[in-house]
C-alpha cells in the first residue's frame, strides 16, 4: 500500500490537507459553475426540437452523473472502512449520503421539469427513472440507518453493507436505457465515444460537469472537517485548534 493511503488514515493529516485543498476547489467551483451557467443559459444554442427547454440538460446531466459517482464513493469508502477499519473512510462514507441525496433530488426534479415540455409527462415509470428513484431511496436508507444506530463503529459497518448491496443499482441505472425499452433517451456523455452533439453544446456541459464535481469536493470537505473535529474533540490537537483558531 502506498504511503498516502496510510496518511489518509490519520484524521489530523486529512484535516490539514483538506484545509489546503478547500480554497482551491472552492474557487474552481465558483468559476466553472458561474461561467458554465452563463454559457449554458445565454450563449449555447437552443435545440432544433426542444428549443430553450434543452438548457435544463446543463443541470440535469451533471447532477445525475454526480449523484451516481457520489454513491460509488460512498460504497467504496464504506468497503475500505470495513476492510482496513479506517475511521476517516467511515467518515467520508457518512458525509456522502446527505450530499448525494440532495443531488439525486436535483437530478429527479430537473428531469421531471424537463420531461413535462419535451415528453409531455412529469413522470413515467420507465427503467431509467425508476432506478434513479431507487438510488434516492438508497441514500435515504443509508442516512436513516446511520442515525438509528448509536454506536459509531456499528453504524459505519451497517451502512457500509447497505451501500455495498445497493451498488448493484449503479450499472442498472447506466444500462437501463440499453437493456430495456425506455422513454428516456440514451446517454449524452460516454467515456468512449464522442458526444452526438456539436461542440458549442457539449463544451458548456463538460464545464458544468467538472464544476459540479468541484462543488461536491467542497461540500464533502466541509462536512468531513466537521466530522473529524467532532470525533477527535478530546484529542490534544483539536483542543489546541479550538483555543487558537476557533475564536
Amino acid at each position, binding site marked *: 500500500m502506498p504511503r498516502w493511503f496510510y496518511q489518509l488514515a490519520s484524521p489530523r493529516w486529512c484535516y490539514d490537507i483538506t484545509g489546503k485543498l478547500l480554497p482551491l476547489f472552492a474557487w474552481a467551483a465558483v468559476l466553472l459553475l458561474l461561467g458554465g451557467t452563463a454559457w449554458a443559459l445565454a450563449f449555447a444554442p437552443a435545440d432544433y426540437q426542444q428549443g430553450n427547454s434543452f438548457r435544463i440538460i446543463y443541470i440535469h446531466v451533471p447532477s445525475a452523473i454526480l449523484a451516481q459517482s457520489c454513491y460509488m464513493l460512498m460504497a467504496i469508502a464504506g468497503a475500505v472502512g470495513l476492510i482496513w477499519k479506517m475511521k476517516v473512510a467511515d467518515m467520508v462514507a457518512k458525509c456522502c449520503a446527505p450530499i448525494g441525496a440532495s443531488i439525486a433530488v436535483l437530478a429527479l426534479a430537473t428531469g421531471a421539469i424537463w420531461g413535462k415540455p419535451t415528453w409531455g409527462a412529469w413522470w413515467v415509470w420507465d427503467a431509467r427513472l425508476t432506478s434513479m428513484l431507487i438510488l434516492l431511496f438508497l441514500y435515504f436508507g443509508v442516512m436513516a440507518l446511520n442515525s438509528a444506530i448509536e454506536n459509531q463503529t456499528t453504524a459505519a459497518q451497517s451502512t457500509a453493507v447497505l451501500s455495498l448491496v445497493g451498488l448493484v443499482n449503479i450499472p442498472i441505472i447506466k444500462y437501463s436505457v440499453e437493456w430495456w425499452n425506455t*422513454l428516456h433517451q440514451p446517454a449524452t456523455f460516454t467515456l468512449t465515444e464522442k458526444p452526438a452533439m456539436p461542440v458549442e453544446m457539449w463544451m458548456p456541459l463538460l464545464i458544468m460537469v467538472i464544476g459540479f464535481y468541484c462543488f461536491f469536493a467542497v461540500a464533502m470537505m466541509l462536512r468531513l472537517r466537521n466530522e473529524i473535529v467532532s470525533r477527535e474533540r478530546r484529542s490534544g490537537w483539536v483542543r489546541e485548534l479550538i483555543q487558537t483558531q476557533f475564536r
Partner: protein
Amino acid sequence: MTPKRKQRLYIVLSIVIGAAVAVGLVMYALSQNINLFYSPADIAAGKAPVETRIRAGGMVVDGSVKRDPESLRVEFGLTDYVSTVNVVYDGILPDLFREGQGIVAQGELNEAGQLIAVEVLAKHDENYMPPEVAEALEKAGKMPEQLRAQEAYAE
C-alpha cells in the same frame, strides 16, 4: 494485506457479488415487465394483450398523420420499420410530436388491431443540435432518424 483484512475483503466482495446475482436473477425473470412499451413488431406477433392498458412505442410513419378538422382526434401509423400499428388518439399531442418522431402511446388494442390511445408521449434521442445544423442535415438527408430509416429499409 493481513489474513484478517483479506478475509474481510472476501466478505465485502461476496456481499457485492451476491447482491448482483440476486438482483440479476430478479431482473431476468421480470425482463418483459421492465420494458416500458411493446414495439409494433411485438404487437403484430400477438405478444401484447388485447383490451388491456398497454404502451406501444415506435416512430410516427411519414405522411400517415390524419387530423380530424372538427376535433382533437388524430390517427397515425406507428412503426419500428418491421411492422406498423395504427393509433387513434383524442387529446393534446406533445410539442415534439411530428412525423418521423419517436413516441410512446398508452392505450388499449381493439379487435381490429388498432391502438386506442389515452396518452401520447414524445420520445427524443441524444442527438441534440442547433436549428441551423438540423436544417442542413435535413436537406442532405442525413438526420439521425432519416439514416435509421434508410438502414432499416436497406436490410
